[in-house]
């Protein structure tokens, strides 16, 4: 007997936040250690009292329960056609994704077609706008090929521009790729045909987190960005505007303390790459190599950036920026900058920005 219909019923509970679904799943299979069958046999009161579900949620569950046989039909059809259904508690589920998105955003189910082993290989995402400039595409091509040759999985979203370029370049050198779909997996038939050779060779994995039958939509396309970032160990930005999917995605990533690399823009480029560097992304050259700290302008920018929210010690700065430099020397360097003041907090020398007020509380969490 297989649990897939139950998983699907829960994963697609209408208007439930992912976190809510995940915590219910955790409660059922991890904390209570009961089966889904048992869970669905509980009555309304038990759902309300034991699982702290409100009236509306209980009603949703009751409706979903009636749909279980229907999900059985759908699951059978998916499996028969060779799609995989990967549950969040399975070994095959991408550990990177789980780590990056945590319980709050990790999708409970992944629908895939192709080589599922790719989910647990080291991976990069190359992102950027649909209307990226030639130079951004050139950059994308170069680094995608480099990664592919080094057996890194290139995660892409199958959008025009940077996404497609990254994918094509990867496949050109017989690299491996995960394509995160902006639609239900069963509806991607043009892609089945286009990437047939790569799928049967095991070079490509198609992946969707949505209900298998939903067609493409703008909402889903925006919604999937988080999974692209989530599936990648490293993120490279080829080009971003001040708004749009790439920008929001990257800002979100920075907020979550993820390391983000961005192509160093030429002086006359009209995009927001430079702004991203100011916000804390690491600039890279056309080969994707981080630009050295000796470049004083960037170095100061990074220091400014990193100290913008809270004071830090030299050691902490060194770690955050992945600097290959002696801590003492770094300390001296920073001290010499005119926008920096240093002070002792709990007997350790820390740096902060001149115009920022002294902060209180536990700063070193």
């Amino acid at each position, binding site marked *: *007997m297989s649990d897939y219909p139950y998983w699907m019923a829960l994963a697609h509970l209408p208007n439930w936040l992912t976190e809510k679904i995940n915590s219910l799943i955790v409660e059922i299979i991890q904390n209570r250690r009961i089966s889904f*069958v048992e869970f669905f046999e509980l009555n309304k009161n038990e759902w309300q009292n034991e699982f702290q579900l409100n009236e509306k949620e209980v009603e949703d569950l009751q409706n979903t329960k*009636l749909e279980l*046989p229907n999900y059985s039909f*759908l699951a059978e059809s998916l499996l*028969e056609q060779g799609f995989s259904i990967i549950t969040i508690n399975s070994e095959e589920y991408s550990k990177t994704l789980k780590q990056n998105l945590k319980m709050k955003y990790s999708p409970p189910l992944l629908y895939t077609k192709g080589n599922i082993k790719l989910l647990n290989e080291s991976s990069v995402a190359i992102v950027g706008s649909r209307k990226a400039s030639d130079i951004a595409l050139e950059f994308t091509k170069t680094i995608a090929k480099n990664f592919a040759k080094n057996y890194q999985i290139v995660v892409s979203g199958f959008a025009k521009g940077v996404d497609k370029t990254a994918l094509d370049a990867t496949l050109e050198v017989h690299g491996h790729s995960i394509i995160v779909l902006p639609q239900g997996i*069963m509806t991607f*038939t043009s892609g089945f045909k286009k990437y*047939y050779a790569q799928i049967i060779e095991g070079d490509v994995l198609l992946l969707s987190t949505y209900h298998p039958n939903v067609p493409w939509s703008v909402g889903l396309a925006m919604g999937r960005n988080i999974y692209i970032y989530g599936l990648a160990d490293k993120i490279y930005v080829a080009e971003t505007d001040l708004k749009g999917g790439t920008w929001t995605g990257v800002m979100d990533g920075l907020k979550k303390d993820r390391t983000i690399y961005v192509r160093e823009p030429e002086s006359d480029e009209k995009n927001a790459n430079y702004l991203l560097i100011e916000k804390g992304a690491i600039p890279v050259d056309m080969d994707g190599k981080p630009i050295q700290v000796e470049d004083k302008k960037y170095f100061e920018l990074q220091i400014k950036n990193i100290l913008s929210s809270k004071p830090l010690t030299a050691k902490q700065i060194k770690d955050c920026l992945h600097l290959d430099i002696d801590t003492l020397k770094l300390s001296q360097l920073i001290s010499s900058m005119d926008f920096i003041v240093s002070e002792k907090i709990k007997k350790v020398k820390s740096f902060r920005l001149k115009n920022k007020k002294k902060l209180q509380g536990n700063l070193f969490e």
Partner: protein
Amino acid sequence: MNRNQAKQTLRNIFNLNHFYEDQWETIERISNGERILLIEKTGFGKSLCYQFPATQFHGLTVVFSPLIALMRNQIKYLKSIGISSECVNSEQEPEENSEIFEKAKQSKIKILYIAPERQENQEWLEAVRKMKLSMVVVDEAHCISVWGHDFRPAFRRIISLVKLLPSNFPVLATTATATERVANDIIAQMGGNVKLIRGNLLRENFYLSVVRVDSEEGKMAWLAEFLKNQNGNGLIYTGTRVNTDLFASWLQFVGIDAANYNAGLDADSRKEIEDGLLSNRWKCIVSTNALGMGFDKPDIRFIIHTQIPQSPIHYYQEIGRAGRDSLPTKIVLLYNPVDRELPEHFINNSRPSINKYQRVINALKQEPLSIHNLMRKTNLTQIQVRVIKTDLIDQRIIREVMYGKSKKYEYQFRAPQLDTRPFEILRQFKIAELKQVIEYAEAATCRMDFLCKYLGDNSVGRCGKCDNDLQIINKFTLTDNWKNKIKEFIECYFLELKVESRNSNIVNGVASGYYGFSNIGSVIHRCKYENGGDFPNHLLIQTLRAFRHKFGKEKFDLVVYVPPTESGDLVKNFAEKIAKILGFPFSNGLKKISKTEPQKVFENYILKRENVKGAFTFENSAEIIGKSILFVDDIFDSGTTIKEIGKMFTYLGTAKIAPLVIAKTIGGSWDDITKPAGLTKRIVNTKKDNLKIDLYKILRRWRVRKAKELSIPAYCILSNAALKNIAEMKPENFMDLLEIHGLGKITVKKYGEDILRLVNKGFETKSEETTKKPKIPSYIEENRKIYPNAYKPWTEEDNKKLWQLYNRGMKVEHLSHFFKRTKGAISLRINKLYIKYGK
């Protein structure tokens, strides 16, 4: 609901008095959400075990059922007692099926019957997501197991489905015919957790007997004698579709009211015969086992098999249709010991050779393909492709994937190697089952006991009614009287050629006989390939008889013939003679305008159709507008050439095209070649031999050309014996070539490529894109230049205008000019409008 309440409901709804014990037990457990495998004898009342609960559940009960006739039979009954039920199947219009889905979604149906193959249908999968489901039933569940009779691959998916259904969701599987091995297999496949309920199998009112005959003619004569003295109505089972027609015609010939039934008939005829069976419209129906399993009619008084069934289980199932009212019923097996040869042959050849599997795999490694394109790419027959794809899916080497509404086959990442061991095991198993049938036929002990024991019921002992228990020995010898009568029959046994289609004016025609019958085939062959001269007079007489039989005194405006490919003027002379005798004008106008390959190079109808597309034209097209044409040819095989010519004539404005041919080959339909049969045997062999001979001829011609090209004597290239061996072995690759006697490495290196190309003509993988583009028939292109509106659809406005002008007396010629369409198209349209608007 307790049993008493239920009994009351049973009376109210089903008009039955009480439940049998096993019925009640099943119903109770089902209502508790259990999973049951119910094995009870034929006619027991298994259907009630789901029909009753279905009326009590809130939602829908889905019944997977293997036969369309069975579905219709059940629906008819359910509707008659006021239970809303429907079936969805491939013989209904898509709109009708969609409507039923809609009704099911709105909970307006209680029981829905569908074929297991539906599970592959996108619309159904979409629709079922929105239905409120209460129970799933797998009727005739033995189809799940390869060890059962009538294994149906689509049932495999039903099993996967059952495994995915919530464990407390009621599932009922029923069958009468499951050996212990099959029962265990079903339970294991359903994932355990299944309660088995099993009753005994004895059918008390059956009088089983076996009649020894020593020829097909003997069977025919025995049947005629038997039926003249037999009360009531019954069924006669033959092994093939072809034989249903043959035996039914024979019985009609001797004055017995018989109809024939098989899966090859169109849906309407089948429905009519099913209804007629229920109302005893005919004395007997001659059928394949497409009308078998599960069909419920109370008073079938006799069942006769003209061919040994494939296994004792098949037999028990097929005779199960009879005597469901418990009155005495006669069950006869006509047995000729040589009958085993053909089923044996089919069992041994039920799977294509391994390199054909490889051909399919290789094609699918290139790109995903529909079944249609798979046939084009591999030049395998439809049946071969079907068998191979089923096996490959089963072994998870390929999968069937939905591309929107259409299906394609995909090779799988990490696909395993093809494992042929299961094929061999199954083959041996089937041979063993066949041996058991022969044992039944030759048994000296109680026959009912034999059958029940085979199915795992040891409780019978001695039925006291079978021929062995009563010590009757049935042996039938053929009298000269009958022999003559049969000869008379065969001489006027003509075959309908089914070629009618919606967008063509061609009508069904007639053949004077089967290619392999009464030596027609060998006579034709001698004339065509061994310089035997014109087709002899007796073929002419026979063909004229066929014409009279089919068309009576009908007059035709013109006789035409298919332009020759290799038979020189044979067909022309033949057609001319026919025209002369019938007094119809004769024409040489039908011409080939592009080069085609001989049709027999192509194994399936798709490639054959493409081969002849646009290849014909008629010289003086004005001559045939609105006319009726009799169209003569020697052999009718797939019918693709005739249909293409029919289309061409229709396009040119001919009102009617009727084909008349000397002989028809046995088509490649599934039943025809997988089910054993007596009479088809000779035919099958002749056909095969011909293919060999033709390939040999092709190879010889190639050798002559090659010898000229290289200026060396022909024998230096390859010996006749070697060529014969090649024709025999049909090699598919260099490895095959090297194994052929008479071919050395050097020869293979020099000529291998040529030879392989000849043997597997034209199937080197072209890309799908290029092969798909249909070449536009040249007559179409020509017409397009002169008549720019040709091939554009008629609008309502056009219609009105045309009708108006026509009624004003404008001539077709002028109308053609006015509408920029051919005269043929105009007169065709006028005909249509005539029907629509009247005078």
